[in-house]
């Protein structure tokens, strides 16, 4: 699915990712944990193609394609999805209209016809219900005056409607209340299958109780310093980054 080799990234001359390797296969869930400022969001932006980042070295292969050569929207339409740590507000654009536009952009890219209005309404309703998002919410402008947690849920709604192949969740759990955390995790688990993959960025082992990862990676100062299975998250919870990084 995704193969990152020796990735070096800088922004405004500042080196942020310094030789990162990561390989994610179909059907796998990887968790990425690491201290503030270690480069987690940067990695998610680089993967989704945000500009201003300079790729100094390394390669990223995505399903046999050179990811770095694709435009942002091409990556998205090829199934790469980023649930933002800080989702954007788009004033004047109804949430449901945005969802429809996103779905139809993908269909257009894949050479399919637009989804008909009824089919769309059904899909949106069922997905929103699963995530406990009210239809009132969907009539409001996208993310405008949404609470922090509501924005995160909205990201997951978009994800479940677009059913991506490779989803990156950047601290989706931060800001969610206990019930919402469970609901969102269930949403993610429901989407999980042998064909898609997840990269879950989080600070809290609690999320990983709900979304069981196949692998856990620890990133520090732009490099993956330790990888393991779920037990690494538990160990981290106990010892903290400092000690873990030293024993790496």
């Amino acid at each position, binding site marked *: 699915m995704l193969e990152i080799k020796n990735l070096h990234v800088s922004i405004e001359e500042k080196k942020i990712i310094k030789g990162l390797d990561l390989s994610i296969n179909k059907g796998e869930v990887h968790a990425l944990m690491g201290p503030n400022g270690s480069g987690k969001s940067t990695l998610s932006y680089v993967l989704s193609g945000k500009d201003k980042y300079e790729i100094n070295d390394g390669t990223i292969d995505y399903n046999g394609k050179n990811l770095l050569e694709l435009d942002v929207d091409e990556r998205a*339409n090829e199934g790469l999805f980023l649930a933002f740590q800080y989702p*954007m507000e788009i*004033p004047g654009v109804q949430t449901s209209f945005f969802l429809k536009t996103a779905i139809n952009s993908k269909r257009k890219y894949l050479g399919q016809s637009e989804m008909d209005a009824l089919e769309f309404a059904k899909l949106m309703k069922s997905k929103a219900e699963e995530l406990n998002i009210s239809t009132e919410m969907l009539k409001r402008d996208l993310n405008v005056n949404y609470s922090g947690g509501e924005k995160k849920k909205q990201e997951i709604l978009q994800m479940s409607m677009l059913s991506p192949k490779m989803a990156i969740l950047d601290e989706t759990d931060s800001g969610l209340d206990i019930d919402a955390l469970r609901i969102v995790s269930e949403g993610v688990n429901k989407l999980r299958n042998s064909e898609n993959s997840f990269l879950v960025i989080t600070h809290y082992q609690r999320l990983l109780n709900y979304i069981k990862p196949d692998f856990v990676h620890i990133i520090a100062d732009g490099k993956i310093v330790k990888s393991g299975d779920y037990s690494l998250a538990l160990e981290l919870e106990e010892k903290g980054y400092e000690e873990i990084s030293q024993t790496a």
Partner: protein
Amino acid sequence: MAATEQTIKQVNTLGSSDYKYGFSTEVDEIRPPKGLNEEIIKFISAQKDEPEWMLEWRLNAFKVFNKLPKPQWAKLNIPEIDYQDCYYYSIPKSLKDKPKSLDEIDPEILKTYEKLGIPLKEQKMLSGIAVDAVFDSVSVATTYKKQLSDLGIVFCSISEAVKTHPELVKKYLGSVIPVSDHSFAALNSAVFTDGSFIYIPEGVRCPVELSTYFRINAMNTGQFERTLIIADKDSYVSYLEGCTAPMRDENQLHAANVELVALDNAEIKYSTVQNWYPGDKEGKGGIYNFVTKRGACRGKNSKISWTQVETGSAITWKYPSCILQGDNSKGEFYSVAITNNMQQADTGTKMIHIGKNTSSKIISKGISAGKANNTYRGLVNILSKAKNARNFTQCDSLLIGNQCGAHTVPYIESSNSDSMVEHEATTSKINEDQLFYCQQRGLNSEDAVGLIVNGFCKEVLQHLPMEFAVEAQKLVAISLEGSVG
């Protein structure tokens, strides 16, 4: 590549070929020689079989025009206009002898309107919208006439109204925009060719949208539209105008005068989607759109609302205004002005509060891309008798790229201490993070810009009649395709 950079690139690649309505129609035209003089005015009047009083009115206006100074262009860069180097009248020969039915109209002209999406033949007519189609200097056809006249509604070309409803025309023509208002108002009064006339009788709610479609076809021809709408007591009408012109290298002049009169409890909703040819990206060609639009809320509780989407023209100069005479009357102005490449727009409104408890609302959204300049210029004037008057003004500007400009020039004059005036203004650049977010959801950069700009304009677009809102949204996206998106 930064999204904005990409947008600018797209803007640059936008040649004039992207103007969808740029074709011209091959028809034989009747055209007197170029130039502006009494002979031409007499010729126009004679062509239209006008009564004597109309000709006198025109000739008087011409005298006034000759005495008036030329308007001062604040933010606009306008080349000197040579009034003698322009045709003032042009009609297709086939329309000379007043076709009685559509069958007598040159099929080329009917085809033109069909290409523009405005079919005039009965079986293909747009439902819920009555259309008056103006081709260069004359009205081609008005649809839904019968249904409207059953309600006592008069909807016809102004040339026709001069003959069929002289008492209304005499009473109201020039009553909102005096001939001597400024030089374009006088010029238009002297040489106006055609436009729409609407009268809604007392107590009647017009059941369909009334609409005029203006098309400039002939070369070197000025179009001098004159529209007069009168809403009698307790009546309502919603009117929409649309406009296009072929792509031509030289500039063409469109100088319109539009007058609205609302009597007691009457409401007029006037919407414009202006998509005249803007010229190419170097600024060659395009329409000079100099328009005087003014509405008088004469009666108590009357209301006039202007909604405009201005995407075309090389130069746009217009300030649809409301004179709030009647107590409790309301004026509204909702505007989206998009300028791209070398386009210039200087637009806004005037709200003149005269009566008690009058209120006005101004929402203006200006979007500039390329090397374009976009100015909002507005005046809120509260006179001493306008006790308890209220105004709310909001002007937002959005910039795409680094070479365009946005300017906001609000004038407020209040001679009344219990009036309340609120003004808010913002200027921002299109947000890269919003663009990235949309693109991460699969929208290409053009669609992303279109979506964000449409969101930015929503407060205005939602005031358009339903049938046109969708079209306008597309137009916003298209004009950004080359320009913004």
